[in-house]
């Protein structure tokens, strides 16, 4: 019988081996997918047990998000509160056990929860430190952000301001907003997500909505044309109107026919026919190449959840990005045809202005300035990182002068500030079959050594509205606040 007993023992070895194998399967090999399982609420529950880190404005004092304790003892949990209400609702987002996280609360979740890897956790336990989240200091300027929200008032739109040299996002405003303090209320959340809700308050228009850029896109066309050597700012071009583009007549704003004009004059007065011809001259290949350098055709490289952002570029009727086969002349002036329309996010247009302002060098946009541990130690300082060299510094310089002329004597005079020179470009795109306008202003200041770049856009403005009249003043005020503040 002894042989059979040994066989049984061998079988036990195998069976227990299977137990260990399956335990390791769940605890190690498939742990990640189990942790991500939608039915698994452990992560959120555990995060609630420890206070999340604070989210602060640029000044390091203004609290945007904090965790307040609720209950006592074992049952104590922390609930997120947002003292600034809807002002920072879009860039910062929310974090609740029921509806999860969004925006910066989501992209910086690991830092905010103090989530470490396996060995980091053990190290922390050996030091018998409690689990605690780090604070996230954002680049957002509280005064300018509040002002931007106030300026947008009850209109739908967005204002984005960046530091061209560092990529720090100083303002990221989007209206209409929502109050992150109440968004976890099931009734409120359901109403916000109702497909019939045309306000779409949860959408962060700064990074998530595609708009026609109108004439602000001429900056991209000009950059491509100048940098590829097709023209110089002083090249004389035909500004007569109308002209045939892709077989269909194209007219200037108000039907004004300019005759021969320099490129600078054409940008200053936003002459459609000149830029449409220029677009055809440059060709869609070169134009797309420069767009890609500016960051089009990919999600913005922002520290923000990727699925909460939208790429800019030429989109066909199905909404898909296309890089060829479109009406390059009309795309060059910020419009398009049946084969593809140029569609952009406000952040993308702010990046266009920033790249010009920064000598042609595009710096990755960043919402976070640094991550600070509870004991004051700086865990991570977000250093500026170059995304691309969009154009030669000389091209950027030429473009800067041309854009300064727009504000000095062209369509963008409403963006001028006293004592500080501003460069910019206006845009007005017809939407809803000409029944409404999308108005734009992009620009930067001061011209001599740019410190802030900005993009302002408003949705569904009445016929007769324009970027120069309706968007440019908003840009001027926000720029003024930013320049005074620092």
């Amino acid at each position, binding site marked *: *019988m*002894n*042989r*059979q*007993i*040994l*066989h*049984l*023992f061998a079988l*036990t*070895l195998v*069976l*227990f081996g*299977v*137990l*260990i194998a*399956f*335990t*390791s*399967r*769940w*605890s*190690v090999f*498939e*742990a*990640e997918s*189990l*942790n991500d*399982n939608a*039915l*698994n609420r*452990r992560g959120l*529950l*555990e995060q*609630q*047990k420890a206070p999340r880190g604070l989210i602060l404005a640029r000044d390091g004092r203004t609290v945007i998000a904090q965790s307040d304790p609720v*209950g006592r003892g*074992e*049952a104590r*949990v922390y609930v997120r509160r947002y003292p600034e209400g809807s002002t920072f609702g879009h860039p910062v987002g929310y974090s609740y056990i029921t509806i999860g996280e969004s925006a910066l609360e989501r992209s910086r979740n690991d830092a905010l929860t103090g989530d470490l890897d*396996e060995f980091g*956790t*053990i190290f922390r*336990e050996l030091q018998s430190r409690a689990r605690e989240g780090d604070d996230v200091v954002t680049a957002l300027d509280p005064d300018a952000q509040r002002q931007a929200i106030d300026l947008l008032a009850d209109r739908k739109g967005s204002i984005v301001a960046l530091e061209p040299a560092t990529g720090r996002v100083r303002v990221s405003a989007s209206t209409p907003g929502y109050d992150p303090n109440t968004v976890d209320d099931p009734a409120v959340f359901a109403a916000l997500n109702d497909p019939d809700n045309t306000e779409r308050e949860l959408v962060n228009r700064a990074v998530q909505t595609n708009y026609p850029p109108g004439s602000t896109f001429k900056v991209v066309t000009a950059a491509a044309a100048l940098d590829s050597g097709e023209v110089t700012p002083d090249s004389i071009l035909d500004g007569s109107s109308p002209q045939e583009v892709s077989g269909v007549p194209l007219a200037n704003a108000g039907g004004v026919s300019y005759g021969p004009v320099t490129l600078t004059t054409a940008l200053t007065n936003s002459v459609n026919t000149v830029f449409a011809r220029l677009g055809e001259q440059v060709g869609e290949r070169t134009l797309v190449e420069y767009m890609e350098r500016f960051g089009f055709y990919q999600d913005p490289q922002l520290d923000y959840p990727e699925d909460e952002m939208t790429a800019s570029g030429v989109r066909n009727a199905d909404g898909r990005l296309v890089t060829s086969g479109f009406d390059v002349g009309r795309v060059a002036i910020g419009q398009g045809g049946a084969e593809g329309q140029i569609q952009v996010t406000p952040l993308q247009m702010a990046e266009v202005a920033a790249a010009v302002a920064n000598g042609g060098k595009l710096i990755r946009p960043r919402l976070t300035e640094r991550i600070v541990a509870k004991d004051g130690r700086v865990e991570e300082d977000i250093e500026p990182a170059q995304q691309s060299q969009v154009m030669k510094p000389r091209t950027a310089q030429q473009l800067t002068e041309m854009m300064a002329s727009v504000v000095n004597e062209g369509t963008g005079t409403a963006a001028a500030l006293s004592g500080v020179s501003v460069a910019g470009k206006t845009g007005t795109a017809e939407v809803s079959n000409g029944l409404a306008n999308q108005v734009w202003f992009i620009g930067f200041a001061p011209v001599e050594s740019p410190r802030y770049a900005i993009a302002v856009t408003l949705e569904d403005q009445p016929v007769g509205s324009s970027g120069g009249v309706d968007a440019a003043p908003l840009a001027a005020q926000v720029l003024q606040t930013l320049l005074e503040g620092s």
Partner: protein
Amino acid sequence: MSARTRELFGLLPVSLLVCAGFAAVLVAQSQEVSDLTVTYGAVFLGLCVAGHVFIRLRLPDADPYLYPLAALLAAFGLVMIYRIDAELAREQAQWFVIGLVLFCATIYLLPDHHVLERYRYTIAAVGIALLVLPRLPIIGAQVNGAFLAVKLGPIQFQPAEFAKLAIIVFLASYLRDTREVLVRARLTPLTPVATGLLYGIPAALFVLVLVALDLEPAVAVLLGIFTLSVVTLVRERPSLKHFGPLLLIWGAAMLMLVVIRDLGSSLMFFGAFLALLYVATARLSIVGVGATLFFGGAALLAGAVGHVQSRIDTWLDPFDRELYEAPGGSFQIAQSLFAQADGGLFGQGFGQALLELPDGARIIPAAHTDLIYAVITDELGLFGASGLILVYLLFVARGFKTALLASDGFSKLLATGLTAVFALQVFVIVGGVTKVIPLTGVTLPFVSYGGSSILANMVLLALLLIVSDHGRRDRVRAGTGGLV
């Protein structure tokens, strides 16, 4: 060093573990170490030493490792239960004391386990009666669809835990008697033609059935093994009359599935039965017939017993939202897997795993009984859980060693059966928690909370030690030596 001294030294790490474990849990819960931890450790060590002294007096030659290993498991269980619920741990400690008394009583009242052979049919009857008890009106109680518990006023106990001992004792003594006649090797060399026919016809039939019915792979494999086993068995022409009781046991196991509606305990009982049958007869063919009959029967019955079927469905697809939200659905197994994923390689640490929701509800159902292994993996990680399995493996190894050293058939079969049923119980519950097999309500021996479980396993330990003492004493007297 004598066996008993080794046993005493074996208890040292156990008491250290109790102290360290309680300290860790207390620190995690209240951020302070009180002298309570030392008190708990000292009391536990005192009890263990008392048990040890008793063994020293009554069973001086018994295996020196079984007792400390059981104490280690019990200590570990106490710490885990204390971490889950301090009140339950107090109760468990009381059960442990009662279990220790029962342990000593068993050793005291049963100086020679061969006495059991005389009462084998009485014991078998008691075993069956115990199994049926939960189905009786008034005292029977249904837990999660299975009939495993009996309620007598405030006391609730699980008779199956005791029934397993009774059935093993019966089988060991029955098989000791019949193993010789059960399969007599009456092999006469067959002519090649006869061999061809013997294997060829069933093989042809099997292929025919396979093609005609278009069976599922699992069913086909089952049928294949069954056919092969039957043919091999038939070739030896066993005496059919002795198979009567064995068929009875198969019928009993099937009935158990219907009566107590628990796949896990049925698997445990029947598995132990097959293990004993294999050791007694040395015929894999019998095991093959038995196992295929069991799984075939179980598969057929599962369809009829809704509760068993739903257990299998939730096992196959625990993350199906509908099953997850159904009452008695896959919530339990899904939470078990989530808890293990949370543990990772090293675990969250004693007292650190998430057990309670903010509203006070438990996130892991039955954390102190069925799913305690999931909590252990959560807190101690893969390493801790593997360590626990290794302790069980050591216990099982010593159990089989006892069987190897025993000098007579009954002792060998008894030790094998007790060890096999113990190992299978570990496999059934840990396998259920880790989704190797469908999850069923069986306790983790010595670790899970539960009076019946502790008491029954203490008796199991006592029986093993009695067998071991006899076997080793005979060897020591005979001067064979070489004992470990």
